[in-house]
């Protein structure tokens, strides 16, 4: 059964959610990965959104993290003060998803600017809740499209710190990176290739990385999406809004 690189990304991320309880969900691919995991391998997965929705059970594909379909039938809907204070800072979040415009070998993330802060070439959205998520979630999963422009030796701006030592947060920082090329874990704080998606070579990964990517000695090929995974996933996004 053929599949797209995006479908491979979603499935690879979803598989990592087995046994996870409280997940801080982003819109798009993270939402698809969490919804897929909840249906297939993690029925008790609690979908928590920074908009204040806890235990969402959306009847349609949400197109924003504040989609009204996330609210209807949720377990609890609360203020952002309560969500960031009592859930995130309190340490209740097991896994949180973050995206990135740039990521470095330590899993630090830039979503603020390309170029200088004062006179940016490209103004990006900024942190949103990412910096407190990066510091307070127990584990951070990074979903990003890999290229020399996104996997860089040096970030233009550190929005959300990765494994750069001591932090005020209670989280353990980035644990996983999933791209269209492979999956990566952090070995003593350094991003390390642990599995290559089907048809991707190490050389392609090296070419798409702005530093010398570490490779796990037991690097494997990612299991391709199984038919059951693909069926469930395509059912979640029938119009292929995110499964481009």
């Amino acid at each position, binding site marked *: 059964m053929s599949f797209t690189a995006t479908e491979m990304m979603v499935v690879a991320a979803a598989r990592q959610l087995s046994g996870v309880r409280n997940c801080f969900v982003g819109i798009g691919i993270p939402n698809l990965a969490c919804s897929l995991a909840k249906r297939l391998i993690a029925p008790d997965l609690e979908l928590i959104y920074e908009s204040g929705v*806890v235990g969402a059970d959306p009847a349609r594909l949400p197109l924003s993290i504040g989609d009204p379909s996330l609210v*209807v039938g949720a*377990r609890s809907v*609360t203020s952002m003060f309560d969500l960031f*204070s009592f859930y995130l800072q309190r340490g*209740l979040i097991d896994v949180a998803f973050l995206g990135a415009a740039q990521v470095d070998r330590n899993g630090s993330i830039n979503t603020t600017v390309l170029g200088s802060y004062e006179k940016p070439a490209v103004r990006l959205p900024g942190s949103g809740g990412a910096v407190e998520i990066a510091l*307070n979630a127990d584990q951070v999963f990074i979903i990003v499209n890999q290229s020399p422009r996104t996997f860089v030796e040096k970030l233009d701006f550190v929005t959300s710190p990765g494994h750069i030592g001591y932090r005020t947060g209670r989280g353990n920082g980035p644990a996983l990176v999933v791209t269209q090329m492979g999956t990566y874990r952090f070995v003593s704080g350094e991003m390390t290739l642990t599995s290559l998606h089907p048809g991707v070579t190490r050389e392609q990964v090296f070419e798409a990385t702005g530093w010398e990517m570490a490779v796990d000695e037991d690097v494997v090929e990612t299991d391709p999406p199984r038919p059951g995974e693909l069926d469930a996933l395509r059912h979640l996004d029938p119009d292929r809004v995110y499964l481009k």
Partner: protein
Amino acid sequence: MANSKVTSMREAVGSLVPDGSVISIEGFTHLICFAAGHELIRQRKQDLTLCRLTPDVIADQLAAAGVISGLVFSWLGNPGVGSLHAVRRRIEGSDPRPIHLEEYSHFGMVARYTAGASGLPFFPLRSYRGSDLPGANPKIVTINDPYGGEPVYAVPPLNPDVSIVHVQKASAGGDAQVWGIPGCQKESAFAAGRVIVVCEEVVSDETIRSDPNRTLIPGTIVDAVVEAPGGCHPSYAQGYYDRDNPFYLEWDAISRDPDLLDAWLDEWVYSLKDHAAYREKLGTERWSALSAGDALSDPVNYGDYS
């Protein structure tokens, strides 16, 4: 939906509240869980520290029964009546033994729970300046304004081992809804290591999820759910029953006399097997005198976005 956490009060208190625990039983005049207090007495728990803004009759009973050895509090009395005589005997006369006091103001206690619930090392507040309270409690400290204004005060986080929270409705999974005076039930629950939700009635997930903004405490942080209708007596549950004001007056005489108090504990706690027996013993006449009429909230529309 979520797996059921419904259990008996005996089981919940027995398994989740070991001797020596720091516990909170909040509820500001409203939703005070006497049913749990009585079970703690019945199981002859020892050396508990009770965190509660307003240790009132429930604290007097726990103190008299020798369950608690310490109070973390901000107001100590029988509201609208006067003193807690059993607590006062322990404070003023170490009779039968002393009780440790850690004293704050209402907002100091609320701020402590909020810091505890928020993973913050302290919480700042505009209080205490010029009061003797910081002198009496070294945990109340000043903190500088990093922007150069005058210092304010701070209190440390309070993280009870167990929080026992009475609510009106809860699902089997522990999603708890409260209306009327919420006090600091939410903050004390999120601050605690374990949470026991005691409810007037267990309701369906559908009822809870028809109004998610009403959920004060999510099952996410709840360890046990106990159904105990009438469990707040002599305090009240908004929309379920009224406050038993005569009981608070009667308690004054009972509490003044240690023998009367022991006799009351024997008759109303030790000799009853559970709160259902207490409820029955109170009798239909007393309950009907406390019955609340109907005043329903107007529903709101969440919309169907399927």
